[in-house]
């Protein structure tokens, strides 16, 4: 009996001391596509998140912040299930995710019902935040980017006629294209040809040969890196000489530069962030350096945005008496004003981010900063 008593006492003391010594842990759920067709984007975003977390993983009051990552396999059902698990099983206070607009929308209802804030790093479709109280994003919406592109095309590039290439499989592409069309027409531009492609296509020669016959001067193509790189390369192979304007999806993955090679020199692109833009905040410089040191490569725009989603949540938590109080955290997230994040200055209004867009030109295989457009 004596031994049993001893054991019991010791374990009781151990547990007691453990609970005193361990500071509280606040959990943030992360839902990203780490495998499946857009697994690459998720992996890049997550790298940025990891670095940011390593730079700042404690709240002001000493609590540690824990990230719980779930791979949604680029799938909607998984996104919904993951959100449900994080909220009811893991009891997270906030969720970062899920990259694409459609996957994010699969989980917003669950989050709204549970009153758990969702911060989307990259979901750009306007429907993601519309009429929601608990969903915010740190990137600008398709609407903004489409307008920026149209303005740039007319005012800076002075192109009054455009060929529009839309990826019909991508809601991102469709969303931006629609706004671009509207804004471009309003400014007096004319879309001379509407071309449709599918993500996953690799051969664009037939389509491009048709275009070549029209001798186009300006092409706007809000598509992702793989398709953009191949289009650029094949356009050059066919001898098409036109000005190309892309969006943030174009340069999102390095494969655009590698596959496009010489073909992408002189391309213009709108973006959320540029690694050589005059750094608007201290944090972005620090983040950039730390990332390059830790991962041996330059940071991907999605990674920076994921990092900022994290930053905004942490900042909101710090403002709450109980950092695990999801309603309070959400209130503070939605009230973010002029937050100096790693990707620039962000203000959140009704869940949408008000931030500047950057326009880059590709020079020597890298994005070179051209100008900033403020909202």
């Amino acid at each position, binding site marked *: 009996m004596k031994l049993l008593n001893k054991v019991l006492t010791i374990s009781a003391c151990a547990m007691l001391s453990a609970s005193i010594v361990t500071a509280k842990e606040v959990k943030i759920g992360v839902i990203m*596509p*780490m*495998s*499946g*067709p*857009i*697994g*690459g*984007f*998720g*992996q*890049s975003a997550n790298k940025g998140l990891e670095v940011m977390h390593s730079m700042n993983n404690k709240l002001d009051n000493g609590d540690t912040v824990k990230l719980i990552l779930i791979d949604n396999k680029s799938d909607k059902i998984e996104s919904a299930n993951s959100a449900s698990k994080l909220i009811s099983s893991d009891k997270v206070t906030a969720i970062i995710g899920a990259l694409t607009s459609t996957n994010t929308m699969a989980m917003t209802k669950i989050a709204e019902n549970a009153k758990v804030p969702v911060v989307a790093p990259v979901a750009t479709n306007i429907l993601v935040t519309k009429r929601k109280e608990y969903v915010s994003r740190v990137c600008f919406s398709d609407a903004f980017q489409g307008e920026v592109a149209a303005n740039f095309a007319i005012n800076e590039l002075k192109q009054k006629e455009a060929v529009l290439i839309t990826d*019909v499989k991508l809601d991102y592409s469709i969303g931006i294209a629609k706004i671009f069309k509207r804004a471009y027409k309003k400014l007096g531009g004319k879309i001379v*040809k509407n*071309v*449709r*492609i*599918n993500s*996953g*296509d*690799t*051969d664009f*020669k*037939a*389509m491009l*040969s*048709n275009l*070549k*016959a029209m001798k186009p001067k300006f092409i706007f193509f809000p598509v992702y*890196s*793989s398709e953009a*790189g*191949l289009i650029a*390369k094949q356009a*050059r*192979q*066919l*001898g098409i000489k036109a000005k190309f304007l892309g969006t943030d999806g174009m340069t999102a*993955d*390095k*494969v655009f530069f*590698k*596959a496009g*090679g010489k073909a992408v020199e002189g391309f213009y692109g709108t973006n959320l962030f540029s690694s050589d833009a005059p750094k608007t905040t201290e944090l972005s410089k620090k983040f950039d350096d730390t990332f390059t040191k830790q991962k041996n490569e330059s940071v991907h725009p999605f990674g920076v945005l994921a990092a900022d989603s994290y930053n905004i949540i942490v900042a909101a938590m710090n403002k709450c008496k109980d950092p695990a109080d999801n309603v309070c955290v959400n209130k503070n997230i939605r009230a973010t004003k002029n937050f100096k994040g790693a990707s620039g200055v962000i203000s959140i209004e009704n869940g949408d981010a008000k931030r500047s867009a950057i326009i880059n030109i590709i020079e020597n295989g890298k994005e070179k900063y051209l100008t900033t457009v403020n909202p």
Partner: protein
Amino acid sequence: MDFITFIQQLINGISLGSMYALIAIGYTMVYGVLRLINFAHADIMMVAAFAAFFAIDSLEVSFVLATIIAILVSVVTGILTDRVAYKPLRHSPRISLLITAIGVSFFLENIVNVTFGGTPKSFNAPEFFDTIIELSGATLTPTVIIVPVVTVLLLSILLFILYRTKYGMAIRALAFDIKTVSLMGIDSNRIIMIVFIIGSALAAVGGIFWAISYPILTPYMGVMIGLKAFAAAVLGGIGSVSGAVLGGFILGFTEVAVVALYPELGAYKDAIAFVFLIIVLVLKPTGIMGINFEKSRF
């Protein structure tokens, strides 16, 4: 459409068609001998492309050596697939074989996904393939000439093997009636292995050409290509090697033609292969070359 554009589109069609042709041959040979649609065939092509990518990028070997490595890797993968997954099921109902093939296909895709990560990889082909040749308004790259030539060359070699060598005769005999042939003392497993070697090697070549022409690799790139190549094989006449090549070219041309003549239908491009497939299977399942398995050989 003016003449120059027409020539340009013609070149595009030849280029695309020959790549489908190379991969279609593998499908048709395996089907001819095993009556199995090897769903995993296109994934073997993908594995070859990734092997070459790995060789060039991480091992930093020359392009030629990388190609050889890729061919070796795909041949080994093909043989393993047959030995491990298909051979034990030789005498099982076809449905089991088909489901297993689907399983192997998924397995290969996901193993590559786990090993290399899901980000698209860019393939560094030698600069030579990128040079632009102007031909009175139409532009081409060396690949456009090399691929069809190599395809036809390989096809001729294959036909020679099939019709003029003992092994070829064995392969054709197996395609005709596998049970009786085994009774005649021919080691059917060995012959089947040879079929997989040839098919996988051709898929590897197709994969390398594909990687040169469209230098972005993803683990799932084989899926669409495989289905289209299979459609091409069926179109030309499943079981016929020349049919596979013919089918490949027809499919390539049609895809280009549809986009060229009806650009609004551009988004439906992928469905064309399936439409062909369904029409052929429903109206004339034996395809263009009309191979009827009850009475035929390659």
